[in-house]
C-alpha cells in the first residue's frame, strides 16, 4: 500500500483537490439558489410555491447520477459544448440547491414572525430583514444540517467520475486499472473520503460552538 501511495500520491492529492473544489463550488452556488427557492416556498404565492415545489420534488426525487448525466448530455443535444468540470459543478449545484432550500425553509420558519414584524414597523426593508434579522439566526439553527449537506455533497461528487472529471474516485479508477491493485487503491480513496468527513464534522462542531458563544460574550 505504501509503495502505491508513494508512486501515485501526487495524482491522488490532485484528485482530492478537484473533489474539494467541485464540492465547494457547488455548495456555494447552491446557497443563493436554495435561499431563493426557500423564499419562493414561503412567499405564499401559488405559482412560486408550485414551481419551487416541483423543482425540489424532481431534484430530490431522482438519482444524482442520472441528473449529472442529463446535465452533461443536454447541452450537447442543444449543440453546445460544456467542459465536464463545469457540467459537474452545475449538476451538483442544482441538486444541492433543492436540499439546501429545505434546510433554509425550516431555518427561516424557526425565526419567530414577530421579530420581522418589529423590523417592518421600524422601516427595515425586506432585504435588510432577511440579511440582518432572519439569516444570522437561521444560520445557527441550520448549521448542523448544512454540514450534513456538505458531507453528502462530497460523497455525491464521487459520481462525477462517470462524466470523466478527474476527481479522486476517477483517479483511483485510473490507478486501479493501471496497477491491477484495486483493493488497495480504493481503500486509499475510501480513507481520503473518511478523513474529509471527519475533518468537516469536526469543523462543524467547532463553528457551532463559536457561534453559540458569539451570542453570549
Amino acid at each position: 500500500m505504501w509503495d502505491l501511495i508513494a508512486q501515485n500520491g501526487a495524482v491522488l492529492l490532485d484528485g482530492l483537490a478537484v473533489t474539494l473544489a467541485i464540492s465547494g463550488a457547488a455548495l456555494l452556488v447552491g446557497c443563493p439558489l436554495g435561499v431563493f427557492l426557500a423564499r419562493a416556498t414561503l412567499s405564499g404565492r401559488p405559482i412560486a410555491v408550485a414551481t419551487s415545489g416541483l423543482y425540489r420534488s424532481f431534484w430530490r426525487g431522482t438519482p444524482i447520477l442520472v441528473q449529472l448525466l442529463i446535465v452533461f448530455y443536454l447541452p450537447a443535444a442543444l449543440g453546445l459544448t460544456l467542459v465536464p468540470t463545469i457540467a459537474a459543478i452545475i449538476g451538483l449545484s442544482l441538486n444541492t440547491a433543492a436540499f439546501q432550500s429545505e434546510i433554509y425553509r425550516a431555518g427561516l420558519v424557526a425565526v419567530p414572525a414577530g421579530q420581522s414584524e418589529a423590523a417592518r414597523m421600524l422601516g427595515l426593508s425586506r432585504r435588510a430583514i432577511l440579511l440582518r434579522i432572519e439569516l444570522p439566526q437561521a444560520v445557527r439553527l441550520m448549521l448542523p444540517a448544512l454540514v450534513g449537506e456538505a458531507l453528502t455533497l462530497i460523497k455525491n461528487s464521487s459520481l462525477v467520475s462517470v462524466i470523466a472529471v478527474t476527481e479522486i474516485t476517477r483517479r483511483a479508477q485510473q490507478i486501479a486499472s493501471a496497477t491491477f491493485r484495486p483493493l488497495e487503491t480504493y481503500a486509499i480513496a475510501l480513507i481520503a473520503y473518511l478523513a474529509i468527513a471527519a475533518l468537516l464534522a469536526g469543523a462543524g462542531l467547532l463553528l457551532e460552538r463559536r457561534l453559540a458563544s458569539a451570542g453570549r460574550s
Partner: protein
Amino acid sequence: MGTFLETYGGLFAAAFATTLTLTAAGLVVAALVALPLALGLRSQSWLIAVPARLYVELMRGAPLVILLFLAYYGGPSFGIVLDAETAGIAGLGLYGAGYFAEIYRAGLNAVPRGEIEAAAVLGLSRGQIFLHVRIPRAARLVLPPAIGQAINLLKESAVLSVITVPELTKVAGEVSNLTFSAIAPYLTAALLYWIAVEALARAGDAAERHLAVGKS
C-alpha cells in the same frame, strides 16, 4: 418519442423491475443488519459499542461507489468473487444498514422515560418492557425516517450501473449508445425513478397516518 418507447419500452420496463427488485433486496439486508447494530450502539460495553459506531460512521462517510468498487473489484484480492448483482445488493444493504442502525437507535432512545418507568412500576421485566413498550413505540417514531432512507437507497441504486448491473441507469446508458442521443433515455429513466420515489413517499405518508390513528 412514440417510436422510442415502442422500440425500447420493454427494455426500460425490465430494467425498472431490476432496479426495484435490487432496491427491495438491499432494503431487507439493510433493515436486518441494522438491528444488531442498533443494539450494539446502545450497548454498555465499549467492546461492542465502539465497533458498531465505527461501522456506522464508515458507512455514512463513504461514497457508495467506492464501497461497490471495493467489493466488486477488490473482493477477488482476498478470494471473494461476487457477481455484479450480488455485490450490488450487498453494497446497498451494508451501506444502508449504517443509516438504519442510527434511525433505530434514535427511535429507541426517543421513547419517553416516563413510559418505561410506568411499565417498570407495574412489575414488567426489562425484557418485557423492551418487547412490549419500547419496540412498538419506537416503530412509530422510526417509520418516517425509514421511508426517507428507503427512498435514498432507491436513488442510490443507480450507482450499481457503474459495476455493470443492468438496472435502469445502466440500460438508459446502453440505449443512449444505440440511439446516439442521451437525453431521451436518461429523461425516461429519471421519470421512472421520480414516479417510484413519489409513490414510496405517498405510501409512507399513508402508513404514517394509519399508525397515527392507532395512537388515540
